[in-house]
């Protein structure tokens, strides 16, 4: 039975975070879309104003896969709902395949839930791909509601090129 710890990410973790982001993107067949660099992650997460926070899951060195000891992570930040106030937004959530089924994912979600309640958030939001039934079940078992289904919300994006077109000349 593998033992593991969860802790706040530190600047030295950015290469592991980058590796796990790419692994998750690869699983979604989108690896080439990851243009973020370790430098960006460092500036954006550990500067004066962090734009994201990470929890990392670590196993003792001997158990690590190919020498890695960081084997899972969650990336989150705070958002704001004008009806109810602060929310915790779960952006990325991934545990390496060989370390699943050990309760690491559940523990991460538990720690995030405590964080949300402690910082007086009214809820936790996140998006899931509609064909990712395993994840949908994981979340629904824990009480998550599908707002796209129940309230008809659709996620939109305006990309940089189109933003530039709209900027004042």
């Amino acid at each position, binding site marked *: 039975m593998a033992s593991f710890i969860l802790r706040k990410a530190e600047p030295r973790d950015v290469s592991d975070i980058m590796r796990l982001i790419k692994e998750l993107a690869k699983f979604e067949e989108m690896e080439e879309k990851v*243009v973020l660099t370790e430098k960006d992650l460092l500036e954006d997460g550990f500067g004066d104003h962090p734009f994201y926070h990470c929890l990392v899951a670590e196993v003792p060195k001997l158990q690590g896969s190919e020498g890695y000891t960081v084997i899972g992570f969650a990336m989150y930040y705070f958002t704001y709902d004008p*009806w109810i106030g602060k929310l915790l937004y779960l952006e990325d959530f991934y545990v390496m395949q060989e370390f699943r089924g050990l309760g690491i994912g559940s523990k991460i979600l538990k720690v995030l839930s405590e964080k949300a*309640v402690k910082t007086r*958030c009214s809820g*936790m939001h996140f998006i899931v791909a509609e064909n990712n039934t395993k994840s949908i079940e994981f979340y629904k078992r824990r009480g998550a509601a599908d707002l796209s289904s129940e309230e008809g919300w659709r996620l*939109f994006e*305006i990309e*940089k090129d189109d933003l530039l077109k709209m900027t004042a000349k």
Partner: protein
Amino acid sequence: MEYKLRKAEPRDVSDILRLVKELAKYEEMEDQVTLTEKELLEDGFGDTPFYHCIIAELQGKNSSDDGKVVGFVMYYFTYDPWVGKQLYLEEFYVMDEYRGMGIGSGLLRHLSDLAMNTRCTGMMFVVAENNEPSIQFYKLRGAEDLSQEEGWRLFRFSKNSLVKMGTPVEE
């Protein structure tokens, strides 16, 4: 009727709440707004702002409407692990009687400038699937429906679910 756009200040929280409630009323959800002016003040103008607002204010030299707050956007910064910082447009509303004057376009342009200045790679927001006028407004400006194109669905854990998942409180 002229208008100007400016960053919201602490004194604007009552107008912000008024407009939030007006928009909620339009969506037939007014009773779901439990946020108070006090929370808006603490959360937006404390040490760590959790949101930012741009206000649209009327300007008319001799008009009784001068200084009236008639529209706003509420936004904050999010993070996409593939591309980095994004600007997230949370709320966007112009009072009915002041539409068609370019205030909405002006607000969106202002946000686009802001996104570019803060090195964001894009702007994201959700729209109700039955809100045709808004969907058209955004699509005209290049917005893509990621729910449609990439199948993303928005989920929520309510506070009750969070408490259930957390460590039980000691008696």
